[in-house]
Every structure is written in structure tokens, then in C-alpha cells.
């Protein structure tokens, strides 16, 4: 498998192989459900929490490196609006921001014109897929649609599958599905596997992210098991949350999912991406997550093909930090155009 990687020489998009511990991985595809892998999951919650708690203290990125990392966070961002009061104009504004996440003077001051920086994707409800596709035409920015009865995922299966098809037809090239959490509580791994596999089939060529609803799953072992089943069912990404649960992306939950996809990669030779979503609001958090990806998985997982943030307000904080880097003065949010 190869990820898109900006080639330094030509600044066109080149491809670099995805590697994990030096081994090249291919894209994920469905494999038969192996219940042993699900059953042998061991997650010690306290130990995971302790490890997660040290990550922000163990890694620190400063100055020009920090600026570069924050730009990377923008490139890996699914700029998202998922509110009941979304409207076509609101989505168009978001898309405009996605095309031009930083003001020109910042881009110039940072000397990053050649990067043509843009966000990883724009993420909307199905109703706004067309609007977004039109607004992003020519930008190369994919449109992601949340789907399958988002956020609860409790509408009839046929309806959910149909929803995916409609979004893909409408031009979404990424589909963020939600799983039936009850399958996890009840240990109905076959049902979960079938569900995710059905969704993936409905996606066709579109990239699929499986939202586990980790806040609902409650225990880290549930999170790990659900991750394994979704991966075996062929998902391209595993994603923490809808942003609508009481608890969304946390570092402990992310660590458990990352470890699961790492082990999956080692066992199968296939790479799965990761998307933490909800609750990631600050530049500092963005850095913590990237450090986690880099240390636990390696450089390949800092590309938008394998790593995305689901975030709506984080960009604003990153803009302020970057302006501070450029000017040496602390910035104010009103100085940066909103989405």
C-alpha cells in the first residue's frame, strides 16, 4: 500500500510505501472473522491510563518543529460540521475554510506556499454532501459523509445501507459509519462483522471509517474487541466517536485502538487508519495525538491516508498558535476567519 506523500522535489503528490517496523503493509480488505483474536484481547485499563497520562509529558515539540507539526495536524483534519442547525451556506463556508485553512500572510510568513496546504476532508451529514462536493470542486479535498443512522445507528439495516449508497452517489468519497453498540455489549461478533462488512460493500470505492462510539462502549476491552471485528470486516479506518457521546476521543481509548490496529497490521500485513474525533480542541492536544501516532505506529500514520482528526474548533486554536509563532505575539481568535 502506498500513501500520498508530498514529494519535496516536485511538490507534486508522490507515493511512499506504508511501513510498520520496516515491513510494508497493504490496504485493508475483509478477512474471515477470527473469534480467537477477539477473545484473546487483554486490556488493563489502569495501565493504559497511566501510559496515556505520560504521553503529554514525554513529548514536546517546539518552535519551527511545532509549526510544522501543527500544519500536519491541519492536513490530517476532517473539518467537520454535524449540527442540527447546519445549512447549505454554513457548509459552503466550511468548505471555503477547508480550501484555505490559513490566511495568506501566515502561509507566506511560514514559507509553505509549495505545500498547498488544505485539510484532510470535509465531514458533513448526507443532506449536505452535494453542497460540499460542489463547493470543493477542483480542490482535491474529499467529502466525508457520516452515515448509517448517525449518531445512534439504530435505524433498520436496509435503511442504513441505502444511506451509504445515496451518499456515495451524491459524491461522498469517504463514509463514516457507526456500529450497533449493542452487538458489542452482547458479544454478537458475527452480527457486528456482518454489519460492518455490509457497510463496506455498500461503500464501493469510497473510503470507510467505522465509528465505534467508544464513550458508549464504556470499557476499553469492548473498544479493543470492536476494533478487531471492524478491521476484520474490512474497514479502512477505525474512529473513536461520533462527537455526540458523553465522552469522546481520549488518549487511553486512542491508545487501545492504535495498539489493536498495530497488532492487526503485524498479523495480517494490512494497514488500518485511525481517526480520533470529538473533544480534541487545542493545538497541544493535536501534538499529543501525533506524538502517539508517531511513537506507537511510525511516520506512515502521520499521513491523511492513515490518520485524521475529527474536529471543528481545533483549527482556530492552531491558527492562533501559528500566528504566535510567526509574530511572537499571542493571537486572538477574532483575527482568524471562521469557517
Amino acid at each position: 500500500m502506498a500513501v500520498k506523500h508530498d514529494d519535496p522535489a516536485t511538490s507534486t503528490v508522490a507515493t511512499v510505501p506504508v511501513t510498520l517496523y520496516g515491513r510494508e503493509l497493504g490496504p485493508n480488505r475483509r478477512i474471515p472473522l477470527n473469534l480467537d483474536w477477539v477473545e484473546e484481547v487483554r486490556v488493563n485499563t489502569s495501565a493504559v491510563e497511566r501510559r496515556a497520562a505520560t504521553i503529554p509529558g514525554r513529548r514536546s515539540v517546539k518552535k519551527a518543529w511545532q509549526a510544522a507539526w501543527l500544519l500536519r495536524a491541519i492536513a490530517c483534519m476532517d473539518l467537520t460540521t454535524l449540527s442540527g442547525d447546519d445549512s447549505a451556506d454554513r457548509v459552503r463556508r466550511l468548505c471555503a475554510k477547508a480550501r484555505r485553512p490559513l490566511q495568506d500572510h501566515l502561509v507566506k510568513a511560514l514559507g509553505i506556499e509549495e505545500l498547498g496546504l488544505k485539510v484532510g476532508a470535509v465531514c458533513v451529514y448526507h443532506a449536505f454532501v452535494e453542497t460540499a462536493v460542489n463547493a470543493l470542486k477542483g480542490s482535491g479535498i474529499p467529502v466525508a459523509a457520516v452515515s448509517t443512522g448517525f449518531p445512534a445507528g439504530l435505524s433498520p439495516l436496509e435503511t442504513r445501507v441505502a444511506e451509504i449508497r445515496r451518499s456515495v452517489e451524491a459524491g461522498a468519497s469517504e463514509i463514516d459509519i457507526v456500529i450497533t453498540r449493542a452487538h458489542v455489549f452482547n458479544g454478537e461478533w458475527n452480527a457486528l462483522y456482518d454489519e460492518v462488512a455490509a457497510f463496506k460493500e455498500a461503500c464501493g470505492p469510497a473510503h470507510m471509517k467505522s465509528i465505534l462510539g467508544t464513550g458508549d462502549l464504556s470499557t476499553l476491552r469492548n473498544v479493543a474487541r470492536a476494533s478487531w471485528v471492524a478491521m476484520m470486516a474490512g474497514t479502512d479506518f477505525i474512529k473513536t466517536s461520533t462527537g455526540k457521546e458523553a465522552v469522546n476521543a481520549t488518549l487511553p481509548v486512542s491508545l487501545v485502538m492504535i495498539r489493536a490496529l498495530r497488532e492487526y497490521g503485524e498479523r495480517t500485513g494490512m494497514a488500518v487508519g485511525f481517526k480520533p474525533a470529538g473533544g480534541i480542541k487545542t493545538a497541544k492536544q493535536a501534538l499529543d495525538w501525533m506524538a502517539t501516532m508517531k511513537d506507537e505506529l511510525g511516520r506512515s500514520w502521520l499521513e491523511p491516508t492513515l490518520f485524521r482528526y475529527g474536529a471543528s474548533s481545533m483549527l482556530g486554536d492552531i491558527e492562533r498558535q501559528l500566528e504566535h509563532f510567526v509574530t511572537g505575539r499571542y493571537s486572538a481568535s477574532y483575527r482568524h476567519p471562521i469557517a
Partner: protein
Amino acid sequence: MSSSIVEKFRSMEYGPAPEDASDVYSWLDGHKRTFGHYIGGNFTTPGQHSFTTANPATGEALATIATATTADVDAAVNAARAALPGWQGLTGHQRARYLYALARQVQKHARRLAVLETLDNGKCIRESRDIDIPLVARHFYHHAGWAQLLDEEFPGYAPVGVVGQIIPWNFPLLMFAWKVAPALAAGCTVVIKPAEYTPLTALAFAEIAYEIGLPKGVLNVVNGDGRTGAAIVEHPNVDKIAFTGSTEVGRIIREATAKTSKKLSLELGGKSPFIIFDDADLDSAVEGLVDGIWFNQGQVCCAGSRLLVQERIAERLYEKIRARMETLRIGSPLDKAIDIGAIVDQVQYDRIQSLVDKGIAEGASCHQPDTDLPAKGLFFKPTLLTGVTPSATVAQQEIFGPVLVAMTFRTPAEAIELANNTTYGLAASIWSENINVALDAAAQVKAGVVWVNSANLFDAACGFGGYRESGYGREGGKEGMYEYLEPKWLQNKRYAAAVVALPDPSPNANTQEPDAETDGSTSPEDFAIDRTVKQYIGGKQVRPDSGYTYTVYGAFGDHAGSRIGQAPLGNRKDIRNAVEAAHAAGKWAKTTAHGRAQVLYFIAENLVQRRAEFIAKLTAFVGPEHAAIELDYSVERTFAYAAWADKFEGTIHNPPARMVTLAMKEPVGTVGILAPDEAPLLSLLSLVLPAIAMGNTVVAVPSERAAILMGELYQVFDTSDLPGGVVNLVAGNASELGKTLAEHDDVDAIWSFRDEATASMVKSASIGNLKQVFTNDGRDIDWFDPEQAQGRWFLRHSTQVKNIWVPYGE
């Protein structure tokens, strides 16, 4: 700047993130980079003897430090002695205010102390900032609390006095806090010597003490090498020595203090097992190893340096470890994104390298990550040695570096066997998702600290300290406070008269079989059936190996000087056999406390049953009146320990995290007891009973002057369901037998309650396996006074605390 950001965007390297050290450099410059000692509330002017302390990451000299001469140590001890009455005269609350102020000041100067520590020691700033210094503050807060509660929580106890403390370089300020906080809280005054590699934070702390107005002389800091340490240890005006460091130096200190009544606590080396069962969360266990062996460059006494992994998951685990090692960042300790800093000194670096070389030479496979090291500075790559056998040097010796030594096991039983196959017993880390497996292993492993599914957790409320040659005494919590306190009555005691040894009992007058236990005055009609008193070993009456007996004479009234009978004359082999029997009876420790209480009650019952016989025997030594009283007290004492058997229980600490720490009171093991001559039955029982009530097995040497009492006593034991071997009685020359016991490497504690000379002898002889020593230091004990002769003081010495950390949460 511009293109460089594009490059960095592509490479996604971390880049440097240095902590600013300028404040610390100005502090050093403010002191002209020269430091004297802190004695009697003043910093001394450095004299001609000095040494240089350097930053091991760069080789840069940081400051010149005065070396304390004997005269300096003398001045410091005198200052501490002079400050003692005033410090003890304060109320607990007043002392608490000082400790609280110290805690607050540590927090206010936290970053300066952290940076200074990192510069002087080479540990990475994350650790000094996030672990060391916060724990220092926590330790002073916690002990401010003990100062406040001293009278309520330690009634009948008084501070030991002037304390000499010697600390290592691996956690300079944290070890300083562990030593100083409890001492000050208890009302002691302190002379402390930091390690010569890392003197700076202690001096910065002294400055803090000065600033808060800690009374002059309460805390004295002197610097220097081992010679300065020796001057403290040998100083006659020091009442207690607390040492953390190598087992080798611990032995020297034990020997050096043997001739004195100085209290001693030792926190020594370790080779702590890190046990991973096949049902563990392996990824978390790998992070546990990062915290266990790659914390502080592995320069941690309780580092999980011996990886024991269940065979069927070993290869998978090693792969995960190797992968993790690649992402450990090694470099400038001041960099905020560095995991592994510098080794403290070239000497240590060379030692680590030579042990790794030896490990490889002895057949281990060595793995180190493909990481670049800084061009200069003492950086050692994290190292994994696999395929190590238990007999390999690297499996036995403490490496004190970032070197993990791995072995496999097949079953939980084998894991425990391997874990305990060491002379050390400091800590253990146990990983399993099965609570039964984890807690069973925690119970069986011989270590003072056990971390379940975690590693290297510390808290001021939870005692820390080892079993076996990892030392004795605990630091932290209530158990740690006892190291700086002693019973008030003991301090007021005069020294007992030296025991006059019996005329050499071995030659002549002895026969293969003992004489009739009569003296010449008995008339023929009273002539009883010849009764033979033998050694009592493994629940059996056995003839002394020597084949000799000695004559026991009466000591009271008409009996004085008359032959009462023959006692077996024990020798080394009797002791050897008795210790073997005591070990064979080890499952006594696993008998329920209720079961042990039942046996003790039964012993009391049978003492009463044989009341007349005992009184008749005792009369010859103490007279009829006292004999009856002594027997009755003996019965009561037996009841007391039967009562205690299921009541001297552990506690549960609540460290500031979601976990409990179970402070379990475990028996020490096999205890050798040398009983005094006074109140021969009562004193012997007063020592044996607390030991067995807590689950120890005992080899006791009764008073040689009244040893024939054991004939009655072992019949009581025999008829009271006491399993054979739990108590073994070996009569003979007490100092000779005591020496054999004190030297025996399979005896875990030696108790001497005879005279000062015997106490010194056992202390000195105990260094082989650094067994725990409990003595009256030759002080008189009134065995009839329960305050002195019964209860917690004895029970505490009958147990050692194992702190089992159990995090929970799903």
C-alpha cells in the same frame, strides 16, 4: 525559516525541546559555583579539601564542593545534638508547620530543583519534573501530617535522637526527602550526606531550610565520599544510621555499627523480577518495562531488571519490547522529549558495559535499538538480553543500568521459584489479567514491594523497603516512622550486667546419657526415674550431636549451686539441623491466624495442666514464690499472643491514584532467638510466642543456666498440636550457638536478648545474608511488665511489611 518548515512538515521529526537552565546557572553563579557544608544553620566556608561535581551528559563541571573532614562531621553531629532538646521540645504541631513550610517551598522552587537535579544527575527533565520533585513535596506534606499526629499515633514512643543519613545518587533529592522528612517528623535531628556525584539539590534544599527558618542544627548537610560517610557511621554521638545504597556498603555499615546500640535501617540493592503471565495485557506490560527498567537509565534499586515471561508468549513479547526500544529517545536530559538521559558517572558506565559484555560472553543474545547517541556524554542504549540462564552473572548481579535480562518460565510455580531465586528481595512486578494468578504470585514472591500490573509506583503513604539482602526497615507511611522512634521505656533503661559465661561445660563430668536430675541431697526413696532432657528439633527429642551434656545448677536458696540436672550440649550441627527443621515447617506461615491462635491457647491450657511440674523446676532457679508468679505470667502471655495472632493485621493505603496498596504483615521466616537468663521461662516464651503467633518458625537457645526447663516445655508443645519444627530448642553455650545462628544464611532474623556483648556479636555475625537483628542492646527488660515485654514492639519485629499495589478499574 520558510523552507525549513516544509522540510520539517515532511520529516515529522521531534526537534529539540530544551528546558531553559539559565535560572539554575545563575543560582550556581550566585554561589560562585562553590559550596560548603550546611552545619548549625550556616553554610561553612569551603576549606582546602574539595571535589567537583559535573554534568554527566556533557562533562561540564558544575560546582566545587567541600569535602567534610572528621572535624566537619563532628561539628555537624554536635550541632544536631545541640538542636535536639529544642526540636523535641516543640509540639508536634509546631514541627508540622516546619515540614509543611518545606513542602510548600519545594513546590515553589519545583522547576529550579528539577533542572538542578537533571544537570547534576543526568536524569531526563521529564522524570525530575514530573516524578522526583512532586514526590519530594508529597513526602514532606505527608510527614507534616505524621508530625502533627505523633502523640496520638505513636503513644509510648520517643524519637531516637541524632540521625546520620547517607543517600545515593540515583534520586538525590527524593532520597533526601525519604530520609529527612520522617526523621524531622519524629523529632529527630539530622546529619545527612548526599552522594558525591550529586550533592547539589541537597544544598539547594538546605538553603530552603535556612530560608524558612528551620531551627539551627536540626538539619545538617555534609558532603564527601565514603570516608565522610564512615565518619558519620562511626560517630559515637549518632543514635541511628539510615542508609540507602549498595548491599556491599550496607554490610560494612552493619559491621561498623555492631558494637554500638545505633539503630540501623538499610535500603539496599535489588534484582527485582518482572513477571509476565500469558494472560497479561502485553502492550501495557511493555510500557511497564519502560517504567521499570528504562526509568532513570535503569539506575533504580527496585528496577524490574529480571524479566520472567511465560514461555508461550516470550517471542511475541520480545518483539514488542524490541519495537518499543526503537522509539525510546536518548539524548540531552534537559530536552523535554527525551526518555533516557545520561549515566551518572564513567565508573557506572564502565560497570554496566562490562556486565553486558559478560552476559554476552556467558551466552545471552543482546539487542540494542538502532538509535543514534549524542557524540559526547555518558549515554547507554537500552539493552535487552535474552536467552539468559538463572546461573548467568547478569541474572544474579545488580547491573544498575538500562539492561533488561530475560528468562522464560512454564508454570506459575516455576515463575515464583525463579523470582525468589535471588539473594535480594526488594520489589516485584506482576502482570496478569487474572486476579487469582496475580494475587497468588504477589503473596508468594519474596519482596517488600509488589506492583500488580504496574511498576515503580511510589507514594509517601506506602512503605518501601526490602526482604533479604535488599535490607531492612521501611521508608514511608506509618511503618517508616517507626524507624525513627523507639519505645520510651527502652530509652530510660539502664544496661544490664554482662552475662558471666558458665565455666566451660564441655570437658569431664559429662556422660553419654544425662545423670538423674537430682542432686546429692535427695534421699534414696525420692529417687526418681532417670529423666533425659534432649534437644527439641523438628518436633522430636534428639540427642545432642556432640554426645555431651552439661550440668545445670540451681540458683536460688538451698538450690543455689546444687546440681539440678543435665542439659544437652548443643553444637553447630544441632543448629544446622534445627534450622533445616524450621524451614521444613514453613507451611506454619500459611496456617490461618485463627489456627495459630488455637494452638497458642492450647499451649496455655497445657502450661496450666503442668503447673506443678513447672513450678517445681523453676523453684530451683527463682524460688517457689517467683516460680508460681512466673508460671502464671507465662500463661497470661501465651493468652496475649493467642489473642494477637489474628489481630496484628495489615493496613490498606490509599495512594493518590485509583488503586489500593495492601500493606500485608508477613512473617519474617525463620527466627533465631537467644533468650536471657532472667525469668527463664517467661522471657523465653515472651520471645518465642510473638514470633510463632505471626507465622514464623523458631530456633531458640534457652538460657543456658536453666536449659533443663525445656524438658517440660517441649512436652507442652508436643501436646498442644504445635506442628513439629515450628519451635526448635537447642541448649548449650548461648554465645557459641548464637554465633552459628547469626551467621546462618538460611536464618532470616536473629533476636538477642542477652547482654550487650552478645548483641554486638550477633549484629556483626549477621552480615552474611544481612538478616534482621532485634536486640535489647543489653538493656534490662522487666519481663513481668507487659508494657516492656509484650505486644506490638515484638510483633512488629516478628513481621515485615509487604506493600502490594493493586490498581483497579475497567
